[in-house]
């Protein structure tokens, strides 16, 4: 423990040099902007900035890019809460409760919750990374394809808790997500399926245009519908107003106490999911939301505009962003897309990512870890200072904001892959999203199914390839078996509880 503190202190000495502080600030600012813009996520942001860093000193460069990555998680929640348009896919769940809070006139509160939860969740992730990074990376290695498949099946089982008042509608929405996820590469053959001969569909429907359409573009239509014929056009601020100032946004003591346990749980779960191979911040945000909805004291309110619904996914995605650095630094293995790009960066800066990195370049590794503590504080300061400015967007008249959002949606979906086809995907998803929302079908289960299904298919496929087609692999692994038992418990417990209640009632009547 003392060793770690000494190394961390050394890391702070590196991170707090003026030039590295500047890199962290620049990275954090860019991350906030990139995160808030729909379409450009952390992956594209880091990939585009990377070539410019090749001539920098490696520690400064990684500090900047890492700051961009985790600041992105803060920025994504801005547009999700204010406009119901997640700036980046990990913010999808934030939009559910965040935007409801905005419509209830509590935008400032929602933003402040998101920032505080992000900071605390991120810090939990960094502390875990500091204390037991290599150990955590080893735990991640125990999750092979069979174990990952079991985890995802568990996640699927728990979608039920997201379905809302009408399970049939939620179930249909989930199935729609599964169907959309089936378009693309058939893993067993390597060829494309349901692509109807269109090269653009051969690797499947892209997630970003789908999200932008489902949330952003459908939102434009909803805005136009809601505000049509109202005479006055004062923008979203025409909703029940609150003081859009920092003071009005601060959380009260009781509110703060409400989100603390949420942040604690989500921080731990999120960090762990970040470490798993092939999982990431998006999945983490989803699962943390579900965990809170199921186990939280205020779970029933979630989905209707509860600050817990903002705190859980935001703490979860920031913790996951920190968690992905554990396998990257201690093993040289990227946990997701963004860290894969960072790995390429390490090599271009002349470093060799791998088990020796910590011993060969301690100033690099510990400088980065220490900078993450510092960077989080910078993010909080900048993000809170931005609250009064960004909330002004709510005062912009709908006749201006609606076309502006439309432009952002189109540019955002095009810019991911420079593809016109993705604009069509976005428009189609917008139409579908509009009708789903109008008829009270929840869109979150659709997107969750769309994110999880490919990981499930890939893991299950790999597991069967390893076992030669036998299902033994799923119960011979203790971890996979454990998750499968949890799944059984999830499915059986409502029935069992009902049975117990009936027996008790019968007993009371008879006795």
């Amino acid at each position, binding site marked *: 423990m003392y060793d770690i503190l000494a190394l961390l202190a050394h890391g702070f000495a590196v991170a707090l040099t003026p030039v590295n502080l500047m890199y962290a600030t620049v990275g954090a600012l860019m991350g906030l902007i990139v995160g808030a813009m729909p379409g450009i996520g952390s992956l594209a942001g880091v990939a585009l900035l990377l070539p410019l860093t090749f001539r920098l000193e490696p520690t400064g460069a990684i500090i900047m890019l890492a700051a961009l990555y985790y600041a992105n998680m803060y920025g994504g929640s801005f547009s999700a809460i204010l406009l119901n348009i997640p700036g980046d896919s990990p913010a999808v769940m934030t939009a559910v409760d965040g935007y409801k809070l905005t419509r209830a006139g509590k935008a400032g509160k929602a933003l402040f919750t998101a920032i505080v939860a992000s900071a605390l969740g991120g810090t939990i992730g960094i502390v875990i990374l500091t204390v037991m990074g290599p150990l955590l990376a080893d735990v991640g290695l125990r999750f092979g394809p069979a174990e990952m498949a079991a985890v995802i099946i568990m996640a699927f089982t728990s979608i039920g808790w997201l379905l809302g008042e009408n399970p049939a509608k939620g179930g249909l929405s989930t199935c729609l997500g599964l169907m959309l996820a089936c378009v693309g590469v058939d893993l067993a053959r*390597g060829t494309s399926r349901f692509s109807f001969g269109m*090269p*653009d569909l*051969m*690797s499947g429907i892209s997630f970003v245009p789908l999200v932008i359409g489902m949330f952003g573009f459908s939102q434009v239509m909803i805005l136009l519908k809601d505000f049509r014929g109202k005479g006055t056009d004062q923008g979203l601020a025409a909703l029940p107003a609150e003081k859009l100032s920092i003071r009005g946004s601060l959380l009260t003591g009781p509110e703060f106490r409400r989100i603390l346990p949420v942040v604690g749980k989500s921080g731990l779960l999120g960090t762990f999911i970040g470490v798993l*191979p092939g999982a990431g911040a998006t999945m983490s945000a989803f699962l943390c939301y579900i965990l809170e909805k199921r186990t939280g004291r205020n779970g029933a309110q979630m989905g209707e505009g509860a600050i817990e619904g903002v705190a859980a996914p935001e703490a979860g995605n920031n913790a996951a962003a920190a968690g992905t650095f554990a396998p990257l630094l201690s*093993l040289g293995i990227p946990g997701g897309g963004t860290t894969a790009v960072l790995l390429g960066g390490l090599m271009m800066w002349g470093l060799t990512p791998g088990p020796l990195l910590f011993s060969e370049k301690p100033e690099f590794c510990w400088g980065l870890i220490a900078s993450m503590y510092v960077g989080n504080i910078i993010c909080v300061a900048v993000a809170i200072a931005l609250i009064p400015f960004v909330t002004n967007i709510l005062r912009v008249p709908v006749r201006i904001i609606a076309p502006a959002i439309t432009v952002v949606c189109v540019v955002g979906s095009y810019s991911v892959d420079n*593809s016109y086809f993705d604009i069509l995907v976005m428009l189609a998803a917008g139409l579908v999203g509009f009708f789903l929302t109008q008829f009270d079908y929840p869109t979150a289960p659709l997107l969750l199914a769309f994110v999880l299904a490919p990981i499930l298919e890939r893991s299950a496929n790999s597991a069967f390839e390893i076992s*030669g087609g036998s299902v033994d692999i799923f119960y011979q692994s203790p971890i996979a078996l454990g998750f499968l038992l949890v799944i059984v418990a999830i499915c059986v417990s409502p029935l069992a509880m009902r049975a117990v209640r009936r027996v008790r009632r019968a007993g009371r009547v008879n006795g």
Partner: protein
Amino acid sequence: MKLSVLRLAAVGLATACLAAPAMAFEPKQDVDMIVPSSAGGGTDLNARTIADIIKRDNLSPVNFQVINKPGGSGAVAFAYAATKSGDDHMLVPIAIGQIISSYALKWDVKGKDMTPIATVANDEFFLAAVKGRFKDAKEAIEAAKGGKITFGSSQKGNSDHLAYLLLNKYAKTNFRYVQFGGSGEVMSALLGGHVDVGLFNPSECIGQVRAGTVVPLASFSAKRMPGELWNQAPTLTELGYPQVIAAETRVVLGPPNMDKDAVAYYEGLLRKVTDTERWKTDYIARNNLTPMFLDSKETAENLAEVIDKRVPIFKEAGF
């Protein structure tokens, strides 16, 4: 890859002399480099390095701009290139694996439809395992005849898959192909003991190899890779399987029907790029690639050899 270094050098010298006379073609507008994958990948890095060197060393009067067109693991970029037939201001930097996929996965536009311009680098393949799992490649190959040894790799119908099929056919092994989402996941599965061997480019496993946790068992190239980390691993040719040759060669193509003079211009330009010190140190060495340059004719021959002689193995394997 079959060409010896000496022959390569000789060919290089000869074409360098031939290329000396003034070119008939000069680009009149910015050249688009269509990268068939997302920003941040290996091909993207290759393209951006080329564009950057051309700009900084003033090798061309126009800009080379990188445009990412991912999708269909390359099919989207090929389909796009086919609509620009005869366009002399467009390059498609690509990994040979995607050219193989155009046949194995039966895309509409195939590798031979495009115009070969040059081969600029070679990314070798190694069969690797966790230290202590197998004594050497021979032991792994013997063990794999029992049909229980798993072989971790990514995707199907690409050069990884081709390397696997060649190994199974000619070494008469029965490795089980297990595909993952990327080389990072393969490494996770290898270290976690979920698969027995994996296929890696040097840059994908160098960290583990240096730490001694993973050992490169055999190389899929014709010659051993230099460097003390890699030269201990015998080639599969040395082990008695000269037909088992595969690598992720980095090729630059043009759209179909590119003008001959334009091909000559870009070929000369790429030769200049690959001769720069920056290319050798910042790109080749840092990414653990092997230097390699083939002109348009040699690239065409090499592609024809891979497509005609090796790709049919996918059909044999019932793929």
